[in-house]
């Protein structure tokens, strides 16, 4: 394929834009060459080199493979149940210096950061309902509190919205911001995590003293700092991330955003609770403790009464289980007696971090053709037969394959050996993409399509098959599963 610009534009219009972005994302750090190249990612990434012609002479198979790989890549994370710091104290440090007015991230770094911050606050409290968040800004060589540490997303969002009226100016100060963050996290109880997330747009830091002393102090107070750079890698950030997260690789703690989507992904990654490292379990870092919490009931007063948290007259609210003060919203700390007040649903919201759904395995054609499952168990979309594989690759499109006709029996698929299978298999297994388009839950043995795979792991956190399997109730009660027996039962029902 010719490497001319015209050819490239042609590629873009043919391909999915997502496919393009996936490869850019996978390029990882190739953009750290400087600011001049930012606007035109095409100068450094050569997407077209990843596109290989399929056996039928088109590139559709590669494009679809890239699409699936992109979906799948987000899923393939470690799903061993890890001990996580569910109760978090996170301080978000926003760079408000002149570097943030750059327009390389649309519309500007500043406005995009504010927009993502709002989304981040909502998502953070969705994922971590019993955690605390605070926001600090740095401009003119100073650090300023934008929103104090609290558990109320609406307060944070209101405070962040106020920043829209201001302009980024001056230079940032890492040291001042970190000192302020350390002061805010100083009183965090030992059973919580202490985290700082810095969004750093500039390439300099204007500090009053030696920032290394601050870093040492952070290490001493067990504060973990994560940084998302918007321009290029900065040495001091690298040191900071390395020293405060000794057990994590740098790729997880300091990354430079390549584009808007990548920036968002990096930002949202911080909403997942961090794993508790083995070393700190022994008592010097996060400690486990038993917390007293109140589960208040909701009341509706006939006439408005003042709430204890804002002193505003309200009718609805919750009464503290210990001292019966009225608070407007949960989760919160009782302003009178300091008891943590939550709903039991808030606790339940964190359970999927503790008991993650296991990754599903790719299914090979050999296995798929033996099985009797011809459609996705979750959404009933028929799977493609082996013989119709080429046909499927031509009919591109992420969903909507209902109109594909597939052969009824599996016999045709078994006799015919596709030509390009060895090639796609080697390419596919690398990305975690199943050659047959099926993904198997190893516990219940059902096959699912890629969309259900993504949906079940990212949104529902349940396996549809495991939850609706014969005998699951007893299995949950007795803690033992007999998969073979269930498989046999299932087959006898189908036949």
């Amino acid at each position, binding site marked *: 394929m010719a490497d001319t610009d015209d050819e490239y534009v042609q590629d873009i219009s043919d391909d999915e834009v997502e496919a393009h972005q996936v490869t850019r994302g996978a390029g990882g750090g190739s953009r750290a060459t400087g600011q001049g190249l930012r606007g035109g990612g095409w100068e450094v990434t050569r997407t077209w080199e990843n596109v290989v012609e399929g056996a039928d002479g088109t590139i559709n198979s590669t494009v679809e493979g890239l699409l699936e790989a992109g979906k799948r890549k987000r899923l393939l994370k470690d799903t061993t149940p890890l001990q996580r710091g569910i109760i978090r104290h996170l301080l978000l440090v926003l760079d408000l210096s002149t570097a943030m007015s750059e327009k390389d991230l649309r519309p500007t770094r500043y406005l995009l950061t504010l927009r993502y911050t709002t989304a981040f606050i909502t998502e953070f409290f969705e994922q971590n309902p019993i955690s605390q968040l605070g926001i600090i800004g740095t401009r003119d060589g100073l650090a300023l509190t934008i929103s104090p540490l609290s558990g109320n997303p609406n307060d944070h969002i209101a405070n962040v919205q106020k920043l829209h009226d201001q302009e980024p100016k001056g230079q940032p100060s890492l040291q001042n911001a970190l000192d302020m963050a350390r002061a805010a996290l100083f009183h965090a109880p030992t059973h919580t995590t202490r985290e700082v997330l810095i969004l750093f747009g500039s390439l300099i830091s204007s500090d009053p003293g030696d920032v290394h002393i601050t870093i040492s102090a952070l290490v001493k107070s067990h504060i973990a700092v994560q940084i998302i750079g918007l321009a290029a890698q900065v040495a001091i950030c690298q040191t900071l991330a390395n020293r405060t997260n000794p057990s994590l690789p740098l790729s997880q703690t300091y990354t430079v955003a390549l584009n808007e989507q990548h920036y968002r992904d990096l930002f949202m990654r911080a909403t997942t609770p961090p794993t508790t490292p083995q070393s700190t379990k022994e008592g010097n870092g996060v400690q*486990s403790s038993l*917390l*007293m919490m109140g589960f208040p*009931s909701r009341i509706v007063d006939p006439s408005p009464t003042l709430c204890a948290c804002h002193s505003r007259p309200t009718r609805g609210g919750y009464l503290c289980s*210990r001292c019966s003060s009225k608070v407007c919203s949960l989760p919160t700390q009782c302003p009178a007696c300091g008891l943590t007040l939550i709903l039991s*649903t808030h606790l339940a919201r964190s359970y999927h971090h503790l008991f993650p759904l296991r990754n599903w395995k790719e299914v090979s054609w050999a296995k798929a053709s033996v099985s009797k499952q011809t459609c996705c168990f979750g959404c*009933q979309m028929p799977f493609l037969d082996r013989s119709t594989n080429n046909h499927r690759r031509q009919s591109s499109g992420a969903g909507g394959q209902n109109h594909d006709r597939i052969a009824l029996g599996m016999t045709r698929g078994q006799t015919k050996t596709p030509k390009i299978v060895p090639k796609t298999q080697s390419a596919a297994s690398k990305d975690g993409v199943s050659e047959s388009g099926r993904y198997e839950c190893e516990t219940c043995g059902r096959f699912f399509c890629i969309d*259900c795979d993504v949906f079940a792991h990212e949104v529902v956190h*349940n396996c549809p098959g495991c939850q609706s399997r014969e005998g699951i109730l007893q299995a949950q009660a007795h803690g033992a599963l007999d998969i073979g027996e269930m498989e046999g039962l299932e087959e006898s029902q189908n036949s």
Partner: protein
Amino acid sequence: MNAVDGSDHYSKTSDEPPPSLLTIILDTNPNAWALLSPTLPLSAAIANLLVFINAHLAFNNANKVAIIASHTQRAEFLYPLPAHEISPHINGSNTHNGDVEMADGDEPTVAEETSTDDANHYRPFRQIQSTLLTSLSTLLKTTSPTSLTPTTSIAGALTLALTYINRCTLNASTTSPNPTTTTPSDNALNPDTAPPPLHPRILILSVSGDLAHQYIPIMNTIFACQRLSIPIDIAKISGDTVFLQQASDATHGTYIKLEHPRGLLQYLMMGFLPDQSCRGFLVAPTAVGVDFRAACFCHRRVVDVGFVCSICLSIFCSPPEGAICLTCGTHLQLGEYGEKPAVVAKKKKKKRDMVDGKAKEATVRSRPG
């Protein structure tokens, strides 16, 4: 992908409300229905349900319906049926061209031969009726007496409903002018993107109680519905469950406990027929009180004030024996839990009492910043 070729012109052609997808989860626990049979036998309930489904389909030509059975120990689709299950059930009458069709609302399918009793029956209605009845009888036939339990697998049915809704939403968005190929989680994070091409909702006809053992999976589905703004409506025919109340409360659905199960159809038509776009203009029946209290993991006692393990978030009604969490086995630090009033001086004393060297050092060191 269409953004490049200028097909944006074709967007926003009509102001019609988007079609709605009604996913009905029918609790088919035979025990509970047997108890109900003097007032509302299952057959009568199904007949009422069919009338309700027909009314839903008649609202808008593009409206869709899916029915999932939440049986004693498994959850299954009753309608639409997966492709491979149709042919064995309907005597193989549709194998004329070797193709398999999804039993979809708009396509002529297999059902025609089975119910020729009423030639004037509107075809989509008849098709749903026959498919539903066939699959339901198959389901009941394959139920063995040994698998009868007083519970029902609501969690599985809800998960199936969600994956099906996800599929339909994806299909609808790829056929609409602005394809959104992002995952649903992205959509949930991007409320400012295009309006949904489909209004999904879930209706649960629940007859059995006690779902405690499925707590975590049910909660997961509830939070998923909340993120995707899918209301869960509950028609509680008998039994009582706290979780379903919480489900409808969290997702802004309707919860109705049927005072007179005999009048099921009336409840369905009045309470559950309006879709999401209509509900803004109506005064929906709401649940009076929702029980938010938690049950402790150790004695299943309902508690106001509980103790929570900071590692696994298990709830206990009193500090467990030896300060070791019963669920995860972690050794827990016990605090004072407000036995003494929280005075500043006391707090300092508490810190000094701790043998931990770090805590001592922390108090000695002056506050930074």
